[in-house]
């Protein structure tokens, strides 16, 4: 049983397990659970992630018309040889945008940890699978790594924008993805934990200010940013860089910042980008009740 990152890393080291192995062990503590069944269920989540990542590349649009088509643009950009290079970060970004565009269009996604942040983890993992030539089984274990980090954050802080701002959503997702990437690349539990901390640190304070309250703008592009930050944090951790502030304290800082955020900056579409001229125009257009809808 682990309650925080310190427990998680310490117990993993003592038992010679990865963070993924720790998460599986924790899951098996619930009576009546079966390891193969748990793994099979997680394997399904990964397939859903893959499908959503591919679907968005075709260029679909959301019902509001606010988002869609950007993953396709990035795909074409990569195909034609991007002038700024073609690394893991760019490929992760493309898939992250793709998944979140599918989400905005009311398609099927796997929340990780939420739907608003559902692009980060698949984005990073799919790009990593191609880059490192990993099997789906190895990728499924990476979801347990991500799950372990998300589990700690969710139980000690929050993962919803309405409660803690975007830092709680994209921040958590980036932390989860960074840790998963480190274990996938052969890093230690401690390195994975520091990658998570460094990713989250870079997103602290980020507010949840979606235009007209829709999970579209700026969510889709923040999934791209979250994926890029996760890749950067994983690189740093694998190089031996540590977060100066320990992972649990970073999580606590995120929690305290979230509590002090004004409600206008927690998914209510009353502040930040939502309160710009463009944000207000979208609100006007989308919040005006359609006649007859109020009493369907």
């Amino acid at each position, binding site marked *: 049983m682990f309650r925080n990152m310190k427990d998680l890393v310490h117990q993993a080291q003592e038992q010679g397990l990865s963070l993924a192995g720790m998460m599986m062990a924790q899951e098996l503590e619930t009576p009546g659970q079966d390891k193969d069944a748990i793994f099979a269920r997680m394997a399904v989540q990964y397939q859903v992630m893959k499908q959503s990542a591919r679907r968005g590349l075709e260029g679909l649009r959301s019902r509001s018309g606010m988002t869609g088509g950007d993953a396709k643009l990035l795909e074409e950009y990569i195909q034609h040889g991007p002038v700024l290079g073609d690394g893991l970060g760019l490929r992760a970004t493309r898939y992250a945008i793709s998944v979140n565009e599918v989400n905005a269009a009311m398609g099927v996604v796997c929340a990780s940890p939420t739907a608003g942040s559902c692009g980060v983890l698949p984005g990073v993992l799919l790009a990593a699978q191609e880059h490192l030539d990993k099997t789906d089984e190895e990728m499924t274990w990476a979801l347990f790594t991500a799950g372990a980090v998300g589990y700690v954050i969710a139980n000690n802080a929050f993962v919803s924008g*309405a409660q803690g701002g975007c830092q709680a959503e994209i921040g958590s997702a980036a932390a989860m993805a960074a840790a998963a990437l480190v274990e996938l690349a052969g890093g230690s539990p401690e390195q994975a934990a520091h990658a998570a901390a460094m990713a989250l640190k870079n997103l602290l304070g980020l507010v949840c200010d979606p235009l007209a309250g829709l999970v579209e703008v700026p969510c889709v592009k923040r999934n791209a940013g979250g994926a890029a930050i996760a890749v950067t944090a994983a690189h740093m951790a694998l190089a031996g860089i540590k977060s100066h502030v320990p992972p649990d304290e970073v999580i606590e800082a995120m929690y305290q910042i979230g509590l002090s955020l004004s409600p206008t900056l927690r998914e209510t579409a009353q502040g930040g980008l939502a309160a710009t001229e463009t944000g207000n125009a979208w609100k006007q257009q989308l919040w005006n009740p359609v006649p007859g809808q109020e009493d369907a």
Partner: protein
Amino acid sequence: MKYRSVFDIIGPVMIGPSSSHTAGAVRIGQLARTLFGRTPDSAVLRFYGSFAKTYRGHATDVAAVAGLLGLPTDDPRIPQSIELARQQGIALTFIAEEAIPAHPNTLTIELADGRGTFRATGVSLGGGLVQMTEVDGFSLKLSGDSPALLIFHRDAYGTIAAITQQLARAQVNINHMEVSRSERGKTALMVIETDEKVEPEVVGQMESQSNVFKIITLNP
């Protein structure tokens, strides 16, 4: 610990766009329907906080109605739920409430048919996880993830002991339990979440006790 499983974090598989405002609303709708026990003739949905501001854009209304119809969170028919409800003759009313709730994502659902009325309130915690916080005026904390019994009973000594003894005899382990009451000596609500499903015969035996008024069984 609010979150108990890795699948609370990696999941649910769902129809977008929001785990709290779409998938969570489907779950609250499903639980309200299950607790009511049947398809209602009418439903009034009251949105509070962030739900009140953004329910149209997040399709929270559509999602909650999908839940009332019993659809799962990843059902492709979710976007058409209001139309489906209309075809089944269910009258729907959506109200954006001004009152500021304790939790930013709060939804109250009032259901009715010829046999009675029912009211439940749920909050969406994020990531598709929900908690029912009120049923017919009784406060509770029900995740809906474990099998559960909601036992409406007379607020009299010995009732709780009798019920838990029956569970012990049936070899059912309790993982969470709480009791709330409207007024001393009147009706109380005992909520028991269990690791194992409680067999209908056991529920029947409980219901035959004179102090027990009604039992709602939840089997996820």
